[in-house]
């Protein structure tokens, strides 16, 4: 075994991954969800009656029982914080100021959670169970992406 002290001086071949980018389709249920968000400012879920679960974002199938789901329900813009974290450094270790607050938002006991940001709130004020509402971008800025929601803020 030989340890390397100067990597550039040993014989090597430089390489790179040749895929330029990816084109991820949002899928059949995703088309419904993101169109409703962009056009109507609504958050849709899909309900499986036999399992008593509502999926947000919606899906075309229930992962528990495999039923086809075609009933879309408007979940409103209000939910509550089920868990959260306050990020103070980024992936490269640089300080985040102000810190970023990420949270799992619950829309009801039998509903899956949505991951998003919290805003208009101080880190030390956040608690589990806090009631929050979605703050959407104005319609002309919305693109049909999860970032059409700017963040969730406490309900005053």
């Amino acid at each position: 075994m030989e340890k390397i002290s100067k990597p550039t001086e040993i014989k090597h071949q430089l390489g790179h991954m040749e895929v330029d980018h990816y084109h991820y389709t949002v899928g059949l249920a995703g088309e419904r969800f993101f169109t409703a968000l962009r056009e109507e400012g609504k958050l849709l879920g899909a309900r499986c009656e036999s399992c008593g679960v509502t999926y947000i974002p919606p899906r075309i199938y229930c992962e528990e029982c495999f039923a086809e789901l075609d009933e879309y329900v408007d979940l409103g813009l209000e939910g509550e914080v089920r868990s959260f974290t306050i990020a103070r450094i980024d992936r490269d270790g640089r300080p985040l100021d102000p810190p970023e607050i990420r949270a799992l938002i619950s829309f009801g006991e039998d509903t899956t959670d949505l991951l998003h940001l919290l805003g208009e709130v101080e880190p030390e004020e956040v608690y589990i169970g806090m009631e929050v509402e979605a703050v959407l971008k104005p319609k002309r800025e919305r693109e049909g992406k999860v970032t059409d929601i700017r963040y969730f803020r406490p309900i005053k």
Partner: protein
Amino acid sequence: MKEVAVVGAGMTLFASRMMETGKELCWEAAKQALDEAGLSLQEIDAVIMGTAPDAFDGIHKKGENLLDGAGGANKPYMRVYTGGGTAVMTPIAGWWHIASGMFDTVLVVNEEKMSSARPHAQSVFAHIWDPILDRPLRPNLVWIFAMEMQRYMHKYNVRKEDIALVSVKNKRNAVDHPCAQLADPKITVEDVLNSEPMALPVRRLDISPPSDGASALVLASLDVAREICPDRIVTIDGVGWCIDTTMWTNRDLAFPKFLARAADQAYRMAGIKDPKKEIHIAEPYDPFNYKELQHMEGLLLCEPGEAAILTREGVTQRDGRLPVCPSGGLLGVGNPIAATMGIKVGEIYWQLARKAGKRQVRNDPVTGVCQAWGDLMQFSSVLVMRRR
């Protein structure tokens, strides 16, 4: 060891670009297979997922990403991956989950979404090569196959016209497949011989296209199969797999010895002594037309160099003595790598169960073989099935 049966199969349309997410494709195929088996997801003990490099979909650990669409949530679940060989390797993994006595029912789901990677799927294949010796010369898959095809034609004196007949047969067979991407009822040998040159001798119509799609199978122990579908008992009687050396420069490019070993393993397990007589139908892997011929020879269904003659004589047509790729194959239905399980294992199951509809072959087969080929172009998986 428990005996294992196939009790249901399903597949999505194969197309060059699909709107559905990978998970949605998985669910569509899996749901069909469960419906055919008459089982609910709750009655499935374990789930096996097969899918090719993460780099196609652009989701690292994509087996885990796909799992809820494949019905794997809260079940024993594993991903199997042997490149193109995955198409027949996942069902083999499903087989050992039951044969071992661990489980009674297994759902096998294979998925591929090749349209996500841009500019094209070839940019993913570009880094399967050895980074020191191959990549500086900018290889692509087509010219490696072209060299293999060249050796094959040279050693066994095979004519390009006979190889072209494979494309014609499969693309015409695919007209009767509801999931087909490249069916063509009017295609001729001249069309194939005059199609766009890519890396000669390989031309456009010698090759199957990249596709999106998914397929699924439901496997059950023979005891369970006798309860749920006594009208069609199709069992997996032999399995085999084998891989050649890493470097493609060091292989026999004319005859696939690794496949002959995999086939021999599967035939011995199934008690088959003379595959030329005892196999009635075959679905060898046909991503290129010459590969169907080479794989028939590797599967020991004829002598090396003889597959072209059988093709010319019509033996491999749907109404021939040994129907080969009656599904339409990868050349006609499409090539969403792992998901080609639906036109290999799925097709043999439907044919033996007499459920192939317009594609049903004429010789009422009892024993069939299917095969997939992949990894670094040097792996094969083989599966022998029988109607009881």
